């Protein structure tokens, strides 16, 4: 589904990504972790072309992301993304947030888009808030709406960029629960997150990044039982004793 081959990116002399390669199979859940500044957010933004990269290749469902001839908008409409700061559109009601891209990008009818949006809103447990505006919801609720907004586009896979790191601790689980359910239904997911409990529960593989490199890329069992690199061991020790 997602194939990343030898991707490198730099800002001048500073390397953000160095020769990163990995793949995500259909139906697979891959968690990307690593210390801050390790390039994990940049990597996931490269997958739908929000960040350009200088060399290497990323193929999503047979389409090359870096190819200038690729219609990036079209590709992005098929890849769902959830952001650290939710990024709901504050001037639109929740229903409008859910419907706008369906209507303007996919060309769906207003009623159809509303129906679909409300169904997904119900699924994330927020049907009662349909008429509200983003600013009137808690962070956890906003993030669940953001997930519903991405799902409304019927994505072939989902990218999560630290979806819980801007949330108060008591709201993290409501978001992780939605993500877990999604994983169990077989959605292809690539998640940048520090939530190791979530990784243990649903991930197939864990990628550990440091200084722009993919240091570990292993099955979850192997990663947690016995991380090979010292950096990963230190990282796990810090995060698990938190």
């Amino acid at each position, binding site marked *: 589904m997602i194939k990343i081959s030898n991707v490198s990116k730099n800002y001048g002399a500073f390397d953000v990504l160095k020769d990163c390669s990995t793949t995500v199979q259909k139906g697979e859940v891959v968690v990307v972790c690593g210390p801050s500044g390790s390039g994990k957010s940049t990597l996931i*933004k490269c997958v*739908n072309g*929000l960040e350009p990269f200088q060399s290497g290749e990323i193929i999503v469902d047979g389409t090359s992301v870096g190819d200038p001839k690729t219609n*990036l*908008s*079209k590709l*992005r*409409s*098929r*890849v*769902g*993304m959830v*952001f*650290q*700061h939710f*990024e*709901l*559109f*504050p*001037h639109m009601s929740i229903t409008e947030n859910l419907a*706008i*891209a369906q209507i*303007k*990008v*996919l060309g769906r009818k207003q009623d159809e888009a509303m129906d679909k949006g409300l169904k997904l809103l119900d699924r994330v447990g927020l049907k009662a808030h349909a008429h*509200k*505006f*983003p*600013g*009137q*919801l808690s962070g956890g609720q906003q993030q669940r709406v953001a997930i519903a*907004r*991405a799902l409304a*586009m019927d994505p072939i896979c989902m990218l999560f960029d630290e979806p819980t790191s801007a949330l108060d601790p008591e709201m993290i689980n409501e978001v992780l629960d939605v993500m877990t359910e999604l994983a169990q239904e077989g959605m292809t997911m690539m998640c940048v997150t520090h939530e190791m409990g979530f990784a243990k529960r649903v991930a197939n593989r864990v990628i550990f990044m440091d200084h722009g490199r993919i240091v570990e890329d292993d099955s979850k069992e192997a990663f947690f039982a016995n991380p090979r690199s010292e950096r990963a061991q230190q990282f796990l020790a810090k995060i698990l004793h938190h």
Partner: protein
Amino acid sequence: MNYQWHWGVFLQPSASGDDTYLGWMLSGLKMTIALSLSAWVLALALGALIGVLRTAPNKWLAGFATAYVELFRNIPLLVQLFIWYFVLPELLPESIGNAYKQSNPMLQQFLASMICLALFTSARVAEQVRAGINSLPKGQKNAGLALGFTLPQTYRFVILPMAFRLVVPPLTSEFLNIFKNSAVCSTIGLLELAAQGRQLVDYTAQPYESFIAVTVAYLLINVTVMFLMRKVEHRVAVPGYLGGK
């Protein structure tokens, strides 16, 4: 100082005979409002466009917009006005220039004033619009793109609706400024409020009454504009966000 106050002067028939001095003031007020409003509409449209271009990823477009803003911000309004009024007609192709110079002088004054105020103000509006766009979290643009919007669609549905709401308060002061700046147009003979006030002094020798009347008229314009813009602010307030409920 033994100044003779005489407020009745406004009701006296004016020197032109067919009007009172109050009538002069009111026609000046009308001119100030007509000029400022028409220039404001143009300035908003142009300023929005230039402000958006300043944030464009294309270097040439952004560069053009920056040059535009710098040009109109770094030359005094009076100089710009004189260039529009005295210089431009000379530089036009002769046939058009001559036709223009033979048109109604009042029309010439009004057009030069309107274009001048519109472009001068548009550069300031553009700066506010750019600041509004840049103050939005960068993630908003990414979220729009990630949903499959093209860049123009992202501006239209995501960035601009919020940016325009954010710039309403700073635009209020630009809107007030355009009324005040319109007084500069009295220098090319346009009979707006300040010019009528001055005429009154020449004809009636009652400078203080005339001064106070003109000041009150500007204060009224100010209060009205602030009231209207506050209405606009409430109208576009986003619930749960920035002054919204």
